[in-house]
């Protein structure tokens, strides 16, 4: 599994520079349904195809960003900072 990820701030680096943060998920379910809590904590869609996911530049600027990658062949379509408006 060897590919290049482009950190939005530092530029292209070997994937080993980064820590993987998993696919993006919906917010945690509000209720206390055991199945829902378990599902949110442990289960992932785990698609064979394109997914949007989190990466952390562990050996560099230590910032979090998103990437869109095809899990079948590790083609990375884009990497980008998280775009958010306003605060909580």
């Amino acid at each position: 599994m060897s590919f290049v990820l482009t950190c939005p701030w530092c530029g292209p680096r070997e994937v080993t520079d980064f820590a993987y943060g998993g696919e993006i998920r919906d917010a945690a379910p509000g209720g206390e349904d055991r199945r829902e809590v378990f599902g949110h904590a442990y289960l992932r869609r785990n698609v064979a195809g394109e997914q949007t996911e989190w990466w952390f530049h562990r050996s560099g600027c230590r910032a979090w960003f998103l990437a869109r990658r095809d899990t079948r062949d590790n083609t990375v379509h884009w990497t980008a900072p998280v775009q958010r408006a306003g605060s909580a």
Partner: protein
Amino acid sequence: MRRPAPAPGEQIERARRISFSFDGRSVPAYEGDTIASALFAAGQRTFSRSFKYHRPRGLLCCSGQCANCLVAVDGAPGVRACTEPARDGLRVEHLNARPSLEHDAMAVVDRLPSRALPVGFYYKTFQRPRRLWPLYERILRSAAGLGRLPRQQAQRSWETEYRRRHADVLVVGAGAAGLSAAITAAQLGADVVLADEDVRPGGRLLDEGGHELAAQLTQRARDAGVELLSRAAVLGYYDGLSPVWQGSTLHQVRAPRHIYATGTIEQPLLFADNDRPGIMLSGGARRLLARYGLTPGTRAVVATVGERGLQAALALQRAGVSVAAVADARRQSGSSAAALRAAGVSMLDGATVRRAHGRRALTAVTLATVGGAERTIRADLLVVSGGDAPAVALPSQAGVRTVYDPRSGVVGLGELPPGIGAAGSVIGDADVLESGRLAGLRAAHALGLGDEHSRESERMLAAALGAEPAALNGAAPVPPDAVAPLPAAASGGRVVVCSCEDVTTKELSQAVWEGFDSIELAKRYSTVTMGPCQGRMCQLACIRLVADATGRPAQEIGSTTARPPWSTVPLGVLAGRPFEPAKRTALHDRHRALHADVRWAGDWRRAYDYGDPAAEARHVAAHVGVIDVSTLGKLLVRGPDAAALLDRLYPSAMSTLAVGRARYGVLTSETGRISDDGTVCRLDVETFYVTTTSSGAGAVEQWFSWWLTDWGLDATVTDVTQALTALNLAGPGARLVLGAVADLDCSNAAFPYLHVRHANVASVPCLLVRLGFTGELGYELHFSSAHAEHVWGALFAAGAAEQLRPFGLEAQRQLRLEKHHVIVGQDTDSESTPFSSGMGWTVKLAREADFIGRPALTLAAAAEAEQVLVGLALPDGPLPAEGAVVLDQAGRPAGQVTSARVGPRLGRALGLAWVPAALARDGAGVTVADGERRLAATVATTPPYDPQGSVLRS
């Protein structure tokens, strides 16, 4: 041996003499010699003994491809003498012969009938009786193997540097084609790395009189800015990344365009006793002549299937070697043949070798024509040229399909996938310079470089090279599969097909007959192609033999899968540097000066004790002590949303923390498990100072940063762990000591427990927090590491009157245990929730704000924990080990002891343990199983020392 007059382009420097030892004797050499060339010059002809039959072996390829010259250099085995430069003072030893290369006791195996050690014999013999297996193993181990590793670890260590190299183009092979490709791409602006195994660029040019052209091309490559790596082996292909091993550096070269100009590998011929010393590939013989000024023999027979062998015969003849006969398997002849005839050399058409004579050295060669007539010719050198197999292994790893071409009798490359190019003889192009230029143009254009002019050049070249490649010198080579090996039974002797693993043609046929009738199965059963040459010398011959034995055409057989590493590489190079970074606090030298026992705590170096940890602990309780806690993680969380961020990260509310106050904080995961703990201090409305466990700083910063990014809150998290030194001053005398150095009212009223103050300590700005991990009156000082030694010194000066002494990690652990203070990671594990760990009070489910793990914690709060963390009063005697098992009432394992010490204040043994919930009542008796011992312990749910915390708050 006196070497002939210097040849132009030779590699040796005759003015510089050196010497090394081989099996204890001194061997003279020139700078530029290889170990093998110097040994050959000194008369050495047997370089190794074969793997199974211990047959004597001599130089065959002279270019690092076969395994005939493996030796140990300075204790490290597996070195190819024919490519390893000779250096002054080296200690070289042979590998697998006892007592010597000349007289090997194991050679008796070669005299056994073939029935005794058939192919795969270890699946058939040495099986029964099974109880004798240890004996068989000892015999087999001493009989097999190629050398011994040095026993001392220090002698086996390997320093390797990893280097990441992102380039535009990686060209593999610096022969004429590779140089041409590299120059072309670089001149169009590409960033090119050119990797080559040889000591200098040029490939076959260096052995066939083209050294001037090689030098010119090398200079042009340098001028164009090509990064040239010599003595560099490309090991494989990994999704666009090729590791290249060069000396003590492993270059990880990533290039979107790869060009393979790996050339061809000359193949040996198959005949009876085809592995004797004195039998050389034509390329090997020419290399000895051209580079090292050595005549490979005095009276030679040349056997060839193509032009290459004839040109070698001419070169030998011109160098003064008597060429007794040339056997050409072809019936046609060209200009080389005519030149040889004109020089009086006896030429036999349609002929090949039937058998070699001699054992330690060649004495004669029996040739046979297709009609059957034989001639035996006296000779000490047999030069063979059995065809040129394209070196397809590396491009094959890169995804290029390989195809057997029955017309040429070799396995070649099929269609090239995107990103992969090839040039030169590996793809059968005769005009190697133009072939390289085309590959270079294609690579540069694919990168977006070049212009209309260069694109036009590419089109024209592609058209010119697309035509059928003109055969060299007008005479096509005979496909090597047309030169059938003659059955060994006809004249005795072994026909060796895989010389690395010592497998004969008869054995390979036997394997197929036994049912291993595919190339992959036959390989695994017979071990052909699995030796150091990795099939360079034998893959092609094995394909043809399997085809013969199964009655299928060779193009249906396929090749065995090419795998990395393509070249022999020490494991140490792949393992990387033994690298153990040690983090030290700014006071490390102070601890050393105080004779502290410094130990590892994660990747930190910490003072475990200063000689007597129990005494240190008692001193803290009675007087005052100071401990260096700089290893604690320290994060500054600031911004308008800082409080909101922490509210959502922690199960407790942090926004309710007043400015100037501190609070214990336990971090939980999304599944409600404890992940870290520390202190949260509020410095002002928008600024929080968070401490973490020593090993958790990085992970907590990563965690905070992630949620911050996801929620898009307006705050920043800054890791200041290394910037600040932290000291914990604890004991009844702590107030007086601090008061003497700080410009602050330290009275209990002015500076209560869990409050935060800013003050100057010995004139250094300091953050002060009143905490009590040890259970005594205590202050934590946080300040810039630049002033660490100054503040430490000032504390001790001021603290002399109060008998201030340092205390270490062990004393701290003893003190905290009497307060039942939990150490996350020691007393808790990845499954522990705050509720089962006695920290349920940190979880504020009643508050409105959502926080991480809330649903899971709500469920955990309602659930019955199976095991609960409690204190234990232990009986006198040896302490139970950490991890000692707690038994339930039925005597089954149901928990464990996580900490156990003799309490410094109590003077008796106590601990923390996970016990079944049913037994978690104060005073309940539990049994601890510690190895064979059974201990009767009592549960204590309140801490034995100062349970109300009045000492902490005093």
